[in-house]
């Protein structure tokens, strides 16, 4: 199996892939045309990336490409539509990077409270400004508000509890029972969380419904001088409304990502929010990027590939059609001989019935098997009759397990 790795991926993970017998082609710095050429040259079956853009051209470059793995949580650098069109599976490595994101969130929270960047900058300028910079609130006893209650959020809560904070939250699927389990109090509305907390941290996925979800409705509720942290995607925050809140109510803000931010390489990037008068800190979209997280994600990628090689099944696949269900389904019992399955499929084709999904399971003794076939249309009695009679010696029986409508 040939793999192209088109981003900096943990070495241990790469060794695991080599242990699986894969040929690993490490092309960490390639992008665009160069990546297309490299993929074509290697003719790889599997492509590993983190945030390098993967276009239709990359997918078409290798005829054999069947799996793209994003070694991290996010995968919007992949042209998913093109992948699905070419029947290339795309998988991600969710949850492996959550601890890293939680650590950054706590780091930013403490940095905001103690104003660490200002201390360092002033001392380096030779200034001693203890009086100006010694006003902090401390985290113990403060109320932390979380919006979004996925794994990152839960790991933040675990850490914040060790800091003896009180925790309140809201999430689209957060129930009171779940909140109790997580040692936090659920409020009915995100606005209520914003109004009640001293520190607000956002952990929402970027979806059509969450675009600019955190806007003036939230910022207007927040207490003057409270802290706001976003280590999820920039798209979930309305930056104009946020800037207004920094200016008008002295919100202290820490952000890990920005609208229209560049990719990995160093370049000029201007975002006015970090230059506002006040306490606004930022990082370079690094929430998921610690060695620990990269190692965990690379190990997960290796596990996905191992399973794929063994079973053809793709764990964490993000482009499997989930919108529709099969119209009907049948189980066909058949002799374990070449061409029997083909006979079944030929009958279905004759009646213009499309196979949606199928699985063939071998019985003990290897003499016969059972094919489960899920179909896109209704199966008429005539089809059944033909399947039952076309080759009774090899097609042992047909059962309609889901007759359709």
């Amino acid at each position, binding site marked *: 199996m040939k793999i192209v790795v088109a981003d900096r991926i943990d070495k241990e993970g790469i060794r695991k892939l080599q242990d699986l017998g894969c040929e690993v082609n490490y092309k960490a710095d390639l992008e665009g045309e160069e990546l297309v050429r490299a993929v074509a040259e290697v003719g790889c079956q599997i492509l590993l990336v983190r945030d390098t853009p993967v276009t239709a051209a990359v997918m078409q470059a290798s005829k054999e490409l069947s799996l793209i793995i994003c070694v991290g949580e996010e995968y919007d650098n992949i042209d998913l539509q093109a992948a699905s069109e070419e029947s290339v599976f795309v998988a991600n490595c969710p949850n492996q990077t959550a601890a890293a994101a939680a650590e*950054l969130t706590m780091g930013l929270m403490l940095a905001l409270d103690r104003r660490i960047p200002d201390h360092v900058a002033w001392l380096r300028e030779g200034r001693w400004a203890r009086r100006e910079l010694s006003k902090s609130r401390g985290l113990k006893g403060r109320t932390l508000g979380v919006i979004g209650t996925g794994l990152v959020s839960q790991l933040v809560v675990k850490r914040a509890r*060790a800091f003896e904070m009180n925790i309140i939250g809201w999430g689209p699927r957060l129930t009171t029972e779940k909140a109790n389990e997580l040692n936090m109090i659920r409020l009915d509305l995100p606005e209520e969380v914003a109004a009640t907390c001293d520190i607000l941290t956002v952990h929402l996925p970027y979806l059509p419904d969450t675009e600019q979800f955190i806007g003036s409705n939230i910022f207007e509720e927040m207490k003057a001088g409270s802290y706001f942290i976003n280590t999820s995607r920039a798209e979930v925050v309305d930056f104009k409304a946020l800037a207004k809140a920094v200016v008008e109510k002295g919100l202290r803000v820490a952000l890990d990502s920005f609208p229209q*931010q560049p990719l990995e390489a160093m370049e000029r990037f201007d*975002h006015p929010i970090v230059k506002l008068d006040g306490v606004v800190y930022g990082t370079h979209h690094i929430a998921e990027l610690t060695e*620990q997280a990269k190692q965990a994600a690379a190990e997960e990628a290796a596990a996905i590939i191992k399973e794929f090689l063994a079973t053809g099944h793709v764990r964490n696949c993000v482009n499997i059609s989930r919108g529709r269900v099969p119209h009907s389904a049948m189980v066909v019992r058949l002799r374990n001989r070449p061409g029997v399955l083909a006979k079944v499929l030929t009958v279905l084709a004759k009646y213009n019935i499309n196979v949606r999904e199928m699985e063939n399971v071998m019985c003990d003794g290897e003499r016969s098997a059972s094919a489960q076939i899920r179909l896109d249309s209704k199966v008429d009695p005539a089809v059944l009759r033909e399947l039952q009679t076309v080759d009774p010696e090899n097609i042992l029986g047909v059962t309609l397990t889901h007759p359709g409508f």
Partner: protein
Amino acid sequence: MKVLIADKFEKEGIDGLKKLGCEVICNPEMKDEKLVAGLKELAPQVLVVRSTKVNGAMIKASPSLKLIVRAGSGVDNIEVPAATVAGVAVANCPGMNSVAVAELTFAFMLGLDRRLVHNTVDLRNSVWNKKEYSKARGLKGRTMGIVGLGQIGVEIAKRAKAFDMHLIYSDVITNEKAEKEYGIRKVAQDELFKTADFISLHVPLNEKTKHMIGAAQLAMMKPTTVLINCSRGGVVDEQALAAAVNSGKLGGAGLDVFETEPGANDTTFADPVIRCDRVYGTHHIGASTDQAQLAVAEETVRIVEEYTKTGQVRNQVNNR
């Protein structure tokens, strides 16, 4: 009971003392000669100070004085022997700032691992450099080494555990309670230096701990190790530290305290260690949070309450 507070003090503390039925006079301006006069005139039984100096002349000025409470931990600003001679008890509020120091320690650990200061400075200078900042190591699964598992050390252990770190410590005593509670393991000091990914110092400054971290100890540490000092400046040999960080033999350092710290009215700071790229420094603010001040105020109220009710002095530092 009449209480004179000759310093700034939390409203919650003043209210708490009033609730006990005390007559409370709070005057932050009352220092030096004014304090001598104030003590003579007001004749309080209890004097509460934060950093205001209390000398023998002041203590003698008020024959009614029975108790001096230092709303903080060190009692350097109080002439304790003079109080002892005059039969005045001196009490302090130790350990009330442990949480604040532990929080600052984590601010340093996480800040240095992710290079949060560099991140912000670059963004403010219109530089995007994700590649550079994606080199952090992370805390989960790393080894946290605590030197001195006292009141602050324990607060650090508690938090480090929630970050899924491995915990080790070295100390002259054995803290079985913390070992049980946080799964922290005692090791020889040198082993801690050699194996920990994050090393945090929480020992008092004395003959034994002066320059406890020098060139030899720094040489034992891994080139990725991050060292934090929020204890006292003299515990670390700053010159050796600067050399180690600058030559890449140490991952970085966070310092809240320095060998020579500016005084309260100074506005400049010339310590070269702070200009090392991988050293983050703060202005000796380990104890400076509202939470810590409030905890001190509450402890002050507890000391006065116990004294009024039982005549016993909690946290007394002198023997009458």
